[in-house]
Protein backbone atom coordinates (compact mmCIF):
# COMPACT_ATOMS: atom_id res chain seq x y z
CA UNK A 1 0.00 0.00 0.00
CA UNK A 2 2.70 2.37 1.02
CA UNK A 3 4.56 1.65 -2.19
CA UNK A 4 1.45 2.36 -4.26
CA UNK A 5 1.06 5.67 -2.47
CA UNK A 6 4.68 6.52 -3.20
CA UNK A 7 4.20 5.69 -6.87
CA UNK A 8 1.12 7.91 -7.09
CA UNK A 9 3.04 10.67 -5.35
CA UNK A 10 5.98 10.32 -7.72
CA UNK A 11 3.73 10.51 -10.78
CA UNK A 12 2.09 13.59 -9.28
CA UNK A 13 5.45 15.28 -8.79
CA UNK A 14 6.58 14.48 -12.31
CA UNK A 15 3.41 15.77 -13.99
CA UNK A 16 3.28 18.75 -11.66
CA UNK A 17 6.82 19.71 -12.58
CA UNK A 18 6.01 19.69 -16.28
CA UNK A 19 2.80 21.71 -15.94
CA UNK A 20 2.80 25.00 -17.82
CA UNK A 21 2.62 28.33 -16.04
CA UNK A 22 -0.90 29.76 -15.91
CA UNK A 23 -2.44 30.69 -19.22
CA UNK A 24 -2.60 34.38 -18.36
CA UNK A 25 1.16 34.77 -18.00
CA UNK A 26 3.10 34.54 -21.23
CA UNK A 27 6.47 32.81 -21.42
CA UNK A 28 8.90 34.96 -23.38
CA UNK A 29 12.06 33.61 -25.00
CA UNK A 30 14.17 36.72 -25.46
CA UNK A 31 17.62 37.72 -26.63
CA UNK A 32 19.96 38.19 -23.69
CA UNK A 33 20.43 41.87 -24.60
CA UNK A 34 16.78 42.33 -23.53
CA UNK A 35 17.49 40.97 -20.02
CA UNK A 36 16.92 44.32 -18.30
CA UNK A 37 14.37 46.03 -20.54
CA UNK A 38 11.72 43.37 -21.21
CA UNK A 39 10.90 42.46 -17.59
CA UNK A 40 10.32 46.17 -16.96
CA UNK A 41 7.77 46.22 -19.79
CA UNK A 42 6.10 42.92 -18.84
CA UNK A 43 6.78 42.30 -15.13
CA UNK A 44 4.32 39.40 -14.91
CA UNK A 45 5.69 37.34 -17.80
CA UNK A 46 8.09 34.41 -17.47
CA UNK A 47 11.41 34.90 -19.23
CA UNK A 48 14.14 32.75 -20.68
CA UNK A 49 17.13 34.80 -21.82
CA UNK A 50 19.88 33.38 -24.02
CA UNK A 51 21.46 33.83 -27.44
CA UNK A 52 18.58 34.25 -29.92
CA UNK A 53 19.89 31.32 -31.99
CA UNK A 54 19.82 28.99 -28.98
CA UNK A 55 16.26 30.07 -28.21
CA UNK A 56 15.18 29.57 -31.84
CA UNK A 57 16.64 26.06 -31.76
CA UNK A 58 14.76 25.35 -28.52
CA UNK A 59 11.49 26.58 -30.05
CA UNK A 60 12.08 24.27 -33.01
CA UNK A 61 12.46 21.42 -30.51
CA UNK A 62 9.09 22.28 -28.99
CA UNK A 63 10.08 24.52 -26.07
CA UNK A 64 7.01 26.01 -24.30
CA UNK A 65 7.55 29.60 -25.48
CA UNK A 66 4.65 31.95 -26.20
CA UNK A 67 6.65 34.89 -27.53
CA UNK A 68 10.03 35.00 -29.26
CA UNK A 69 11.96 38.28 -29.12
CA UNK A 70 15.18 38.04 -31.11
CA UNK A 71 18.12 40.35 -31.73
CA UNK A 72 17.70 40.04 -35.48
CA UNK A 73 14.95 39.52 -38.04
CA UNK A 74 16.49 36.46 -39.67
CA UNK A 75 15.84 33.98 -36.85
CA UNK A 76 12.13 34.85 -36.32
CA UNK A 77 11.67 35.05 -40.11
CA UNK A 78 13.12 31.55 -40.49
CA UNK A 79 10.81 30.30 -37.73
CA UNK A 80 7.88 31.98 -39.49
CA UNK A 81 8.91 30.39 -42.79
CA UNK A 82 8.96 26.95 -41.19
CA UNK A 83 5.61 27.46 -39.49
CA UNK A 84 6.86 27.87 -35.92
CA UNK A 85 5.73 31.44 -35.26
CA UNK A 86 3.62 34.34 -36.55
CA UNK A 87 4.98 36.87 -39.04
CA UNK A 88 7.63 38.80 -37.07
CA UNK A 89 7.69 42.59 -36.79
CA UNK A 90 10.56 44.89 -35.88
CA UNK A 91 10.00 46.16 -32.33
CA UNK A 92 13.22 48.01 -31.64
CA UNK A 93 16.74 48.58 -32.89
CA UNK A 94 20.17 48.77 -31.35
CA UNK A 95 23.71 49.90 -32.12
CA UNK A 96 26.83 47.78 -32.10
CA UNK A 97 29.84 49.15 -30.21
CA UNK A 98 33.32 48.06 -29.26
CA UNK A 99 34.02 47.86 -25.53
CA UNK A 100 37.29 47.69 -23.63
CA UNK A 101 37.90 47.27 -19.88
CA UNK A 102 38.01 50.56 -17.93
CA UNK A 103 41.78 50.19 -17.52
CA UNK A 104 42.13 49.51 -21.26
CA UNK A 105 45.23 47.28 -20.92
CA UNK A 106 45.72 46.97 -24.69
CA UNK A 107 45.44 50.75 -25.25
CA UNK A 108 42.68 50.49 -27.82
CA UNK A 109 41.32 53.81 -29.07
CA UNK A 110 39.61 52.84 -32.33
CA UNK A 111 38.40 49.61 -33.93
CA UNK A 112 41.49 49.72 -36.13
CA UNK A 113 43.70 49.17 -33.07
CA UNK A 114 42.26 45.65 -32.96
CA UNK A 115 44.72 44.79 -35.74
CA UNK A 116 47.63 44.96 -33.31
CA UNK A 117 49.16 41.61 -32.57
CA UNK A 118 48.32 40.05 -29.21
CA UNK A 119 45.07 41.93 -28.60
CA UNK A 120 42.65 39.56 -26.90
CA UNK A 121 39.37 40.04 -28.71
CA UNK A 122 36.17 38.27 -27.66
CA UNK A 123 33.19 38.05 -30.00
CA UNK A 124 29.95 36.09 -30.05
CA UNK A 125 29.75 32.71 -31.76
CA UNK A 126 28.50 31.57 -35.14
CA UNK A 127 24.78 32.15 -35.59
CA UNK A 128 24.47 34.36 -32.49
CA UNK A 129 23.00 37.63 -33.86
CA UNK A 130 25.63 39.87 -32.25
CA UNK A 131 28.33 37.57 -33.66
CA UNK A 132 26.90 37.95 -37.17
CA UNK A 133 26.68 41.75 -36.80
CA UNK A 134 30.30 41.76 -35.62
CA UNK A 135 31.41 39.90 -38.76
CA UNK A 136 29.44 42.40 -40.89
CA UNK A 137 31.28 45.30 -39.27
CA UNK A 138 34.67 43.67 -39.74
CA UNK A 139 33.91 42.94 -43.40
CA UNK A 140 32.64 46.45 -44.11
CA UNK A 141 35.73 47.99 -42.51
CA UNK A 142 38.04 45.45 -44.21
CA UNK A 143 39.16 44.31 -40.78
CA UNK A 144 38.57 40.55 -41.11
CA UNK A 145 42.27 40.11 -40.29
CA UNK A 146 41.48 40.89 -36.65
CA UNK A 147 39.68 37.54 -36.42
CA UNK A 148 43.22 36.21 -35.83
CA UNK A 149 43.06 37.97 -32.47
CA UNK A 150 39.80 36.35 -31.37
CA UNK A 151 40.45 34.30 -28.23
CA UNK A 152 36.90 33.13 -27.62
CA UNK A 153 33.51 32.99 -29.30
CA UNK A 154 30.82 33.32 -26.67
CA UNK A 155 27.30 31.94 -26.66
CA UNK A 156 25.55 35.28 -26.17
CA UNK A 157 26.23 38.99 -25.91
CA UNK A 158 26.19 39.09 -22.10
CA UNK A 159 29.00 36.54 -21.99
CA UNK A 160 31.08 38.81 -24.23
CA UNK A 161 30.28 41.71 -21.91
CA UNK A 162 31.23 39.63 -18.84
CA UNK A 163 34.63 38.62 -20.24
CA UNK A 164 35.51 42.26 -20.98
CA UNK A 165 33.99 43.65 -17.76
CA UNK A 166 36.02 41.05 -15.80
CA UNK A 167 39.13 42.45 -17.49
CA UNK A 168 39.96 39.01 -18.93
CA UNK A 169 39.63 40.15 -22.55
CA UNK A 170 41.05 43.34 -24.11
CA UNK A 171 38.03 44.11 -26.25
CA UNK A 172 34.67 42.82 -27.41
CA UNK A 173 31.75 43.75 -29.63
CA UNK A 174 28.41 44.18 -27.85
CA UNK A 175 25.25 46.27 -28.22
CA UNK A 176 25.27 49.83 -26.91
CA UNK A 177 22.56 48.83 -24.43
CA UNK A 178 24.72 46.06 -22.93
CA UNK A 179 27.68 48.41 -22.56
CA UNK A 180 25.37 50.79 -20.68
CA UNK A 181 24.61 48.14 -18.03
CA UNK A 182 28.31 47.90 -17.12
CA UNK A 183 29.37 51.50 -17.64
CA UNK A 184 31.53 51.49 -14.51
CA UNK A 185 33.60 48.61 -15.84
CA UNK A 186 33.87 49.13 -19.57
CA UNK A 187 34.61 51.98 -21.97
CA UNK A 188 32.70 52.33 -25.19
CA UNK A 189 34.41 52.91 -28.53
CA UNK A 190 32.02 53.71 -31.35
CA UNK A 191 32.22 52.11 -34.75
CA UNK A 192 32.78 54.40 -37.78
CA UNK A 193 29.52 55.27 -39.56
CA UNK A 194 30.32 53.24 -42.68
CA UNK A 195 30.80 50.05 -40.66
CA UNK A 196 27.61 50.20 -38.60
CA UNK A 197 25.15 47.36 -39.10
CA UNK A 198 21.38 47.80 -39.00
CA UNK A 199 20.51 45.94 -35.81
CA UNK A 200 16.77 45.16 -35.89
CA UNK A 201 14.95 43.20 -33.19
CA UNK A 202 12.08 40.96 -34.31
CA UNK A 203 9.18 39.70 -32.20
CA UNK A 204 6.61 37.01 -32.98
CA UNK A 205 4.00 34.82 -31.29
CA UNK A 206 4.90 31.13 -31.21
CA UNK A 207 2.41 28.97 -33.18
CA UNK A 208 2.27 26.21 -30.58
CA UNK A 209 1.55 28.68 -27.76
CA UNK A 210 -1.21 27.72 -25.34
CA UNK A 211 -1.52 31.32 -24.15
CA UNK A 212 -2.03 33.18 -27.42
CA UNK A 213 -4.15 36.04 -25.94
CA UNK A 214 -1.51 36.77 -23.29
CA UNK A 215 1.22 36.48 -25.92
CA UNK A 216 -0.54 38.86 -28.31
CA UNK A 217 -1.22 41.33 -25.50
CA UNK A 218 2.46 41.26 -24.57
CA UNK A 219 3.59 41.90 -28.15
CA UNK A 220 1.11 44.79 -28.35
CA UNK A 221 2.46 46.28 -25.14
CA UNK A 222 6.06 46.02 -26.38
CA UNK A 223 5.12 47.77 -29.66
CA UNK A 224 2.95 50.35 -27.89
CA UNK A 225 3.97 53.63 -26.21
CA UNK A 226 4.82 52.04 -22.84
CA UNK A 227 7.09 49.40 -24.33
CA UNK A 228 8.78 51.83 -26.66
CA UNK A 229 9.36 54.33 -23.87
CA UNK A 230 10.98 51.71 -21.65
CA UNK A 231 13.16 50.45 -24.50
CA UNK A 232 14.34 54.00 -25.20
CA UNK A 233 15.13 54.46 -21.52
CA UNK A 234 17.44 51.41 -21.68
CA UNK A 235 19.17 52.87 -24.74
CA UNK A 236 17.43 50.98 -27.53
CA UNK A 237 16.71 52.87 -30.75
CA UNK A 238 13.30 53.66 -32.30
CA UNK A 239 11.70 50.96 -34.47
CA UNK A 240 12.21 52.98 -37.63
CA UNK A 241 15.55 54.66 -38.39
Amino acid at each position, binding site marked *: *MRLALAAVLAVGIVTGASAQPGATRATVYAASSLTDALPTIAPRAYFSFAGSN*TLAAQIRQGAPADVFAAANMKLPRDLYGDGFCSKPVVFTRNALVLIVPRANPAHIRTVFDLRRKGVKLVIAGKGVPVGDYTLQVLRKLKLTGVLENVV*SRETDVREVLAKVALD*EADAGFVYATDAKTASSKVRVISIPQRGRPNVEYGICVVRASHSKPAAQALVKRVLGPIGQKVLRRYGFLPRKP
Partner: protein
Amino acid sequence: MRRTLLAALALAAAAVALAFLVLPVAAIFLRVPPGKLLHQLSSPVVTDALIVSAKTSAIAQALIIVFGTPLAYLVASRRFRGRALVVTLIELPLVLPPAVAGIGLLALFGRAGLLGTSIPFTQTAVVLAVAFVASPLYIRQAIAAFEAVDPDVVAAARTLGAGPGRTFFRVVLPLARGGLAAGEALAFARGLGEFGATIMFAGSLQGLTQTLPLAIYEEFALDFDTALAMGALLVVVSAALLVILKLVLTWQPSRQTSGFLFVRSS
Protein backbone atom coordinates in the same frame (compact mmCIF):
# COMPACT_ATOMS: atom_id res chain seq x y z
CA MET B 1 -3.01 -10.81 -3.41
CA ARG B 2 -1.34 -7.86 -1.78
CA ARG B 3 2.04 -9.38 -2.39
CA THR B 4 1.48 -9.86 -6.11
CA LEU B 5 0.19 -6.30 -6.41
CA LEU B 6 3.28 -4.99 -4.68
CA ALA B 7 5.51 -7.09 -6.89
CA ALA B 8 3.74 -5.86 -10.00
CA LEU B 9 4.06 -2.23 -8.88
CA ALA B 10 7.73 -2.67 -8.11
CA LEU B 11 8.29 -4.21 -11.51
CA ALA B 12 6.42 -1.38 -13.22
CA ALA B 13 8.43 1.23 -11.33
CA ALA B 14 11.64 -0.58 -12.25
CA ALA B 15 10.64 -0.64 -15.92
CA VAL B 16 9.89 3.12 -15.84
CA ALA B 17 13.23 3.87 -14.20
CA LEU B 18 15.17 1.75 -16.68
CA ALA B 19 13.36 3.16 -19.70
CA PHE B 20 13.93 6.68 -18.41
CA LEU B 21 17.68 6.08 -18.23
CA VAL B 22 18.02 4.22 -21.52
CA LEU B 23 15.67 6.00 -23.91
CA PRO B 24 17.29 9.47 -24.09
CA VAL B 25 20.60 7.83 -24.95
CA ALA B 26 18.97 5.50 -27.47
CA ALA B 27 17.12 8.46 -29.04
CA ILE B 28 20.45 10.06 -30.00
CA PHE B 29 21.12 7.09 -32.27
CA LEU B 30 17.55 6.61 -33.48
CA ARG B 31 16.86 10.18 -34.55
CA VAL B 32 19.42 10.27 -37.36
CA PRO B 33 20.37 7.34 -39.63
CA PRO B 34 23.81 5.90 -38.78
CA GLY B 35 25.22 6.73 -42.23
CA LYS B 36 24.36 10.39 -41.81
CA LEU B 37 25.67 10.31 -38.25
CA LEU B 38 29.05 9.09 -39.51
CA HIS B 39 29.04 11.67 -42.29
CA GLN B 40 28.45 14.53 -39.79
CA LEU B 41 31.47 13.35 -37.82
CA SER B 42 33.79 14.36 -40.66
CA SER B 43 32.84 18.05 -40.43
CA PRO B 44 35.74 20.30 -39.35
CA VAL B 45 33.88 21.46 -36.23
CA VAL B 46 33.72 17.86 -35.04
CA THR B 47 37.27 16.85 -35.92
CA ASP B 48 38.67 20.04 -34.36
CA ALA B 49 36.65 19.49 -31.19
CA LEU B 50 37.74 15.86 -31.07
CA ILE B 51 41.41 16.81 -31.32
CA VAL B 52 41.07 19.52 -28.66
CA SER B 53 39.21 17.13 -26.34
CA ALA B 54 41.70 14.29 -26.85
CA LYS B 55 44.74 16.50 -26.34
CA THR B 56 43.50 18.41 -23.30
CA SER B 57 42.11 15.23 -21.71
CA ALA B 58 45.38 13.37 -22.18
CA ILE B 59 47.42 16.16 -20.59
CA ALA B 60 44.93 16.75 -17.78
CA GLN B 61 44.77 13.06 -16.91
CA ALA B 62 48.57 12.74 -16.95
CA LEU B 63 48.75 15.66 -14.51
CA ILE B 64 46.05 14.13 -12.34
CA ILE B 65 47.98 10.86 -12.09
CA VAL B 66 51.39 12.45 -11.53
CA PHE B 67 50.21 14.86 -8.82
CA GLY B 68 47.18 13.01 -7.51
CA THR B 69 48.82 9.65 -6.81
CA PRO B 70 51.38 10.96 -4.28
CA LEU B 71 48.67 13.03 -2.57
CA ALA B 72 46.38 10.01 -2.36
CA TYR B 73 49.18 7.79 -1.04
CA LEU B 74 50.23 10.26 1.65
CA VAL B 75 46.64 10.76 2.78
CA ALA B 76 46.04 7.00 2.79
CA SER B 77 49.21 5.98 4.61
CA ARG B 78 49.55 8.72 7.22
CA ARG B 79 47.43 9.60 10.19
CA PHE B 80 47.68 13.28 10.97
CA ARG B 81 45.60 16.06 12.48
CA GLY B 82 43.23 17.60 9.98
CA ARG B 83 43.25 14.54 7.75
CA ALA B 84 39.45 14.51 7.54
CA LEU B 85 39.59 18.15 6.54
CA VAL B 86 42.12 17.43 3.80
CA VAL B 87 39.95 14.61 2.43
CA THR B 88 36.91 16.90 2.46
CA LEU B 89 38.82 19.63 0.63
CA ILE B 90 39.92 17.10 -2.00
CA GLU B 91 36.31 16.03 -2.48
CA LEU B 92 34.88 19.55 -2.59
CA PRO B 93 35.37 20.18 -6.35
CA LEU B 94 33.35 17.01 -6.92
CA VAL B 95 30.19 18.47 -5.42
CA LEU B 96 30.74 22.05 -6.60
CA PRO B 97 28.65 23.20 -9.55
CA PRO B 98 31.02 23.48 -12.56
CA ALA B 99 30.08 27.13 -12.97
CA VAL B 100 31.49 27.77 -9.49
CA ALA B 101 34.67 25.99 -10.54
CA GLY B 102 34.86 28.32 -13.55
CA ILE B 103 34.43 31.40 -11.37
CA GLY B 104 37.05 30.10 -8.94
CA LEU B 105 39.60 29.39 -11.66
CA LEU B 106 39.04 32.88 -13.09
CA ALA B 107 39.35 34.44 -9.65
CA LEU B 108 42.72 32.68 -9.16
CA PHE B 109 44.30 32.49 -12.62
CA GLY B 110 42.46 35.32 -14.38
CA ARG B 111 44.31 38.37 -15.56
CA ALA B 112 42.56 40.35 -12.85
CA GLY B 113 42.73 37.37 -10.48
CA LEU B 114 44.89 36.57 -7.45
CA LEU B 115 47.80 35.23 -9.48
CA GLY B 116 47.18 37.47 -12.47
CA THR B 117 48.19 35.04 -15.22
CA SER B 118 47.44 35.04 -18.95
CA ILE B 119 46.04 31.50 -18.83
CA PRO B 120 42.34 32.23 -19.62
CA PHE B 121 41.34 31.52 -23.26
CA THR B 122 44.24 29.08 -23.78
CA GLN B 123 44.41 25.31 -24.04
CA THR B 124 46.16 25.39 -20.67
CA ALA B 125 42.93 26.81 -19.27
CA VAL B 126 40.98 23.85 -20.67
CA VAL B 127 43.50 21.45 -19.10
CA LEU B 128 43.22 23.19 -15.72
CA ALA B 129 39.42 23.22 -15.82
CA VAL B 130 39.32 19.50 -16.64
CA ALA B 131 41.95 18.65 -14.01
CA PHE B 132 40.13 20.66 -11.36
CA VAL B 133 36.74 19.00 -11.80
CA ALA B 134 38.01 15.50 -12.59
CA SER B 135 40.91 14.93 -10.20
CA PRO B 136 38.81 14.38 -7.04
CA LEU B 137 37.29 11.29 -8.66
CA TYR B 138 40.73 9.79 -9.17
CA ILE B 139 42.22 10.89 -5.85
CA ARG B 140 39.25 9.64 -3.81
CA GLN B 141 39.37 6.24 -5.44
CA ALA B 142 43.16 6.14 -5.13
CA ILE B 143 42.99 6.85 -1.39
CA ALA B 144 40.55 3.95 -1.00
CA ALA B 145 42.75 1.68 -3.12
CA PHE B 146 45.89 2.49 -1.11
CA GLU B 147 44.04 2.05 2.17
CA ALA B 148 42.92 -1.40 1.03
CA VAL B 149 46.53 -2.56 0.64
CA ASP B 150 47.31 -4.96 3.49
CA PRO B 151 49.80 -3.18 5.79
CA ASP B 152 51.33 -6.57 6.71
CA VAL B 153 52.37 -7.11 3.11
CA VAL B 154 54.02 -3.68 3.06
CA ALA B 155 55.72 -4.40 6.37
CA ALA B 156 56.91 -7.76 5.06
CA ALA B 157 58.43 -6.12 1.99
CA ARG B 158 60.25 -3.63 4.22
CA THR B 159 61.57 -6.40 6.53
CA LEU B 160 62.80 -8.26 3.51
CA GLY B 161 64.96 -5.27 2.72
CA ALA B 162 63.00 -3.26 0.18
CA GLY B 163 63.35 0.53 0.62
CA PRO B 164 60.27 2.79 0.79
CA GLY B 165 60.48 3.66 -2.91
CA ARG B 166 60.92 0.07 -3.99
CA THR B 167 58.12 -1.02 -1.68
CA PHE B 168 55.81 1.58 -3.19
CA PHE B 169 56.53 0.75 -6.82
CA ARG B 170 56.86 -3.03 -6.41
CA VAL B 171 54.30 -3.77 -3.72
CA VAL B 172 51.80 -0.99 -3.07
CA LEU B 173 51.27 0.22 -6.63
CA PRO B 174 50.65 -3.23 -8.16
CA LEU B 175 48.24 -4.09 -5.34
CA ALA B 176 46.31 -0.84 -5.73
CA ARG B 177 46.36 -0.69 -9.49
CA GLY B 178 42.79 -1.95 -9.98
CA GLY B 179 41.37 0.83 -7.83
CA LEU B 180 43.67 3.40 -9.41
CA ALA B 181 42.57 2.41 -12.90
CA ALA B 182 38.92 2.55 -11.89
CA GLY B 183 39.37 6.02 -10.44
CA GLU B 184 41.23 7.16 -13.51
CA ALA B 185 38.49 5.87 -15.82
CA LEU B 186 35.89 7.84 -13.86
CA ALA B 187 38.07 10.97 -13.87
CA PHE B 188 38.62 10.62 -17.61
CA ALA B 189 34.90 10.33 -18.28
CA ARG B 190 34.12 13.31 -16.07
CA GLY B 191 36.87 15.37 -17.70
CA LEU B 192 35.68 14.53 -21.20
CA GLY B 193 32.24 15.85 -20.37
CA GLU B 194 33.46 19.06 -18.71
CA PHE B 195 31.41 22.06 -19.84
CA GLY B 196 30.66 24.80 -17.31
CA ALA B 197 34.11 25.52 -15.95
CA THR B 198 35.65 25.32 -19.41
CA ILE B 199 33.29 27.77 -21.11
CA MET B 200 33.75 30.30 -18.31
CA PHE B 201 37.49 29.95 -17.82
CA ALA B 202 38.78 28.95 -21.25
CA GLY B 203 36.09 30.35 -23.50
CA SER B 204 35.21 28.57 -26.71
CA LEU B 205 37.23 28.79 -29.91
CA GLN B 206 37.18 26.14 -32.59
CA GLY B 207 40.49 24.30 -32.82
CA LEU B 208 41.88 25.87 -29.66
CA THR B 209 39.57 25.64 -26.66
CA GLN B 210 36.33 24.25 -28.11
CA THR B 211 36.00 20.74 -26.67
CA LEU B 212 33.31 18.26 -27.76
CA PRO B 213 30.72 19.34 -25.16
CA LEU B 214 31.22 23.02 -26.08
CA ALA B 215 30.92 22.17 -29.78
CA ILE B 216 27.70 20.25 -29.08
CA TYR B 217 26.29 23.31 -27.35
CA GLU B 218 27.25 25.60 -30.24
CA GLU B 219 25.99 23.21 -32.92
CA PHE B 220 22.69 22.73 -31.08
CA ALA B 221 21.72 26.21 -32.26
CA LEU B 222 23.27 25.81 -35.72
CA ASP B 223 22.90 22.25 -36.94
CA PHE B 224 21.09 19.81 -34.70
CA ASP B 225 22.30 16.76 -36.67
CA THR B 226 25.95 17.62 -36.09
CA ALA B 227 25.21 18.10 -32.40
CA LEU B 228 23.57 14.66 -32.37
CA ALA B 229 26.55 13.10 -34.12
CA MET B 230 28.94 14.47 -31.51
CA GLY B 231 26.57 13.33 -28.79
CA ALA B 232 26.65 9.82 -30.26
CA LEU B 233 30.43 9.92 -30.35
CA LEU B 234 30.62 10.85 -26.66
CA VAL B 235 28.11 8.12 -25.77
CA VAL B 236 30.28 5.53 -27.53
CA VAL B 237 33.50 6.74 -25.87
CA SER B 238 31.87 6.95 -22.43
CA ALA B 239 30.31 3.50 -22.80
CA ALA B 240 33.70 2.09 -23.80
CA LEU B 241 35.23 3.67 -20.69
CA LEU B 242 32.55 2.12 -18.53
CA VAL B 243 33.17 -1.32 -20.01
CA ILE B 244 36.92 -0.97 -19.44
CA LEU B 245 36.19 0.10 -15.88
CA LYS B 246 34.06 -3.00 -15.27
CA LEU B 247 36.77 -5.26 -16.72
CA VAL B 248 39.42 -3.64 -14.55
CA LEU B 249 37.31 -4.04 -11.43
CA THR B 250 36.65 -7.74 -12.04
CA TRP B 251 40.38 -8.43 -12.09
CA GLN B 252 41.89 -9.62 -8.86
CA PRO B 253 45.27 -7.96 -9.08
CA SER B 254 46.47 -9.09 -5.65
CA ARG B 255 46.74 -12.74 -6.62
CA GLN B 256 48.51 -12.01 -9.87
CA THR B 257 51.13 -9.74 -8.41
CA SER B 258 52.05 -11.04 -5.00
CA GLY B 259 53.86 -14.19 -6.16
CA PHE B 260 55.88 -12.29 -8.72
CA LEU B 261 56.67 -9.72 -6.14
CA PHE B 262 58.09 -11.92 -3.43
CA VAL B 263 60.22 -13.87 -5.86
CA ARG B 264 61.82 -10.64 -6.98
CA SER B 265 62.39 -8.92 -3.69
CA SER B 266 63.81 -11.83 -1.72
